[in-house]
């Protein structure tokens, strides 16, 4: 299996109609001890779309993404990618599936002992039979895509948070995946770089038809890149659909979230009143 073949096997579908049911999540539940993090999540992600997952901090977005990649086992429910149930695959099948996906972790998760360039080259070295020099050439190209070529020889420890994040994106797209996962790609980036990352995500999606799942808090960024949006609250999907549909959702909590309204101020004012002596 060579890299070239895989690249050609990519569906070239910029103008193609999105295909429903590409990734199907059914009744996904997960808890750490007593703490329920995901509580019966159902999602349907179409082929070739940019699907944005939003929600307040700690509501289980990262956990959701780890399940989509098969990195964490759920307590119940299933994730089905193109008809394959991720959690009942044999290890070798799971590996094959993973080679078609790329994941940019929230904290980067770069290997500390390898330089940035070697980090990006690693998936190519380990999974293709390309020549060592050529691998570096491709890795440099990916780094240039995220504007990080100048830092190629640095170790991850000497990168800033935003640089780590971009290096992780470069590594995630190293194998030209069909499915890309981004965990908060623009958090911690300055507005210009964040816009560049958004642009990169849209370009990859349009040019290669990569199905893209993005977790983000960043409303303008979601506005710009999303085809469809899901909003999570407390481990459940509170709203899902075309972004216009979600932007104009009826639910009070979702409106508050989208319009960045503070909810709890009034509630807290009332709270102390109950403790005051009359």
């Amino acid at each position, binding site marked *: 299996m060579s890299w070239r073949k895989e690249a050609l096997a990519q569906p070239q579908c910029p103008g193609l109609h999105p295909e429903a049911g590409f990734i199907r999540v059914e009744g996904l539940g997960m808890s750490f001890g007593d703490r329920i993090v995901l509580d019966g999540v159902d999602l349907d992600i179409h082929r070739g779309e940019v699907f944005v997952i939003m929600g307040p901090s700690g509501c289980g977005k990262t956990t959701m993404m*780890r399940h989509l*990649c098969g*990195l964490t086992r759920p307590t119940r429910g299933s994730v089905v990618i193109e008809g394959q149930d991720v959690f009942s695959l044999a290890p070798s099948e799971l*590996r094959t599936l*993973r*080679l078609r*996906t*790329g*994941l940019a*972790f929230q*904290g980067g*998760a*770069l*290997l*500390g002992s390898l330089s940035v360039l070697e980090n990006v080259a*690693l*998936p190519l070295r*380990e*999974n293709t039979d390309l020549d060592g020099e050529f691998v570096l050439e491709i890795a440099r190209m990916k780094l240039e895509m995220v504007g990080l070529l100048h830092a190629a020889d640095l170790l991850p420890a000497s990168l800033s948070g935003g640089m780590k994040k971009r290096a992780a994106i470069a*590594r995630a797209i190293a*194998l030209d995946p069909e499915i890309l996962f981004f965990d908060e790609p623009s958090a911690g980036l300055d507005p210009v770089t964040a816009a560049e990352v958004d642009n990169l995500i849209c370009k990859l999606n349009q040019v290669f038809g990569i199905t893209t799942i993005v977790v983000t808090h960043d409303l303008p960024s979601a506005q710009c890149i999303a085809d469809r949006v899901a909003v999570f609250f407390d481990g459940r999907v509170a709203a899902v659909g075309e972004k216009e549909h979600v932007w104009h959702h009826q639910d009070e909590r979702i409106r508050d979230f989208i319009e960045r309204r503070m909810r*709890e*101020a009034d*509630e*807290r*004012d009332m*709270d*102390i*009143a*109950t*403790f*005051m*002596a*009359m």
Partner: protein
Amino acid sequence: MTGLTLPPPGPLSDPSTAVFECASELDRHAAPDTIAAIDRLFASEPRKLVVDLRQVESFDSAGIGALVQAMRHGRERGVEVKLRGMSKSMVDFFSLVRVGSLTEPGERRSIDLDPVTRIGAATLPLLEMMADIGRMTAGAARSIFLDPFRGRMLRFDRTVRELDQAANGALPIVLLIAFLLGLILAMQAWVQLRLWGAEIFMADMVGVSVMTEIGPLMTAIVLAARSGSSNAAQLGSMVVGEEIDALRQMGVDPIRFLVAPKVVALGIAVVGLGVVFDLVAMGGGLLFGFGVADIEPYAYVAQTRTALHFADFAVALAKSLVFGLCIGVVGCGLGLRVKGGSEGVGRATTNSVVLSIFLIIIIDAIFVTGQRMLLS
């Protein structure tokens, strides 16, 4: 900002109501006294406690914390605690927190478990750890012995690097320990043997004890402390930093990529350094014999050669190899199952040294028993 009207201060006539008047300063310094004073009021078991805050001129978070704690204690004892005469700024401060949820009594779990459950709770993690390490050992064995036949060779470059770190790094300390232990053993032997004028047999004592036991054991212990622990710490922090997950996600098996080279390198390192240890320790013995006990080096070497048997040497080598593999597997295994941040990494590091040394002694006992039983 708050539409609240501050309640007017008024006299309290109810006798079951206690009143606590706060002084003008409700800050970090006054907080402990405030808490103690309110707790004393609780002791008289009032139905209601009113904290009068009219006098308060300045306050800080610790002072407010004292009030929150008083409210929590009150709630736990079923006393209704009310605040009176709060200034506007104090109300504003309170609007940043939800007192209701802060003073919620936490649920107490009973810690009195019956003995069977306690034994279960103590042994289950141990069993899980052994299962984890066992699974990892199987994975490492697969990638060391089976994968080469499937055209996936062990990562040579990584193995060499690990070997360099383990063996070269430990060489100075191993040389030093070996030399000093050789001298010490020779001295101890000499003190006993010269009573019978049998000094030359110190060559036997040093040679046999070093080659069969002390060499392999000391080398293994040094490497467990140096490399085993460092492997546990390294893999542990990679788990914490999601690097292991990232490898899996990229289709790279962390066992094959990280663990197998480390285990092989440690096996080689313990065997190699063990042989070096033997030679240097015997050299130390020889030096002592020549310098203090007047034994000719030639005679010492000849005597050593009659004392040592090839079978013992072979067993010592085999033992060293198993020690090394064991150190590698334990360090990596504990590192990979780290949970809970930097504290977990620290625990894995310590445990890896303790467990490695324990297992080394057990393996040694098995080898010695096996060898003696075969010979008899």
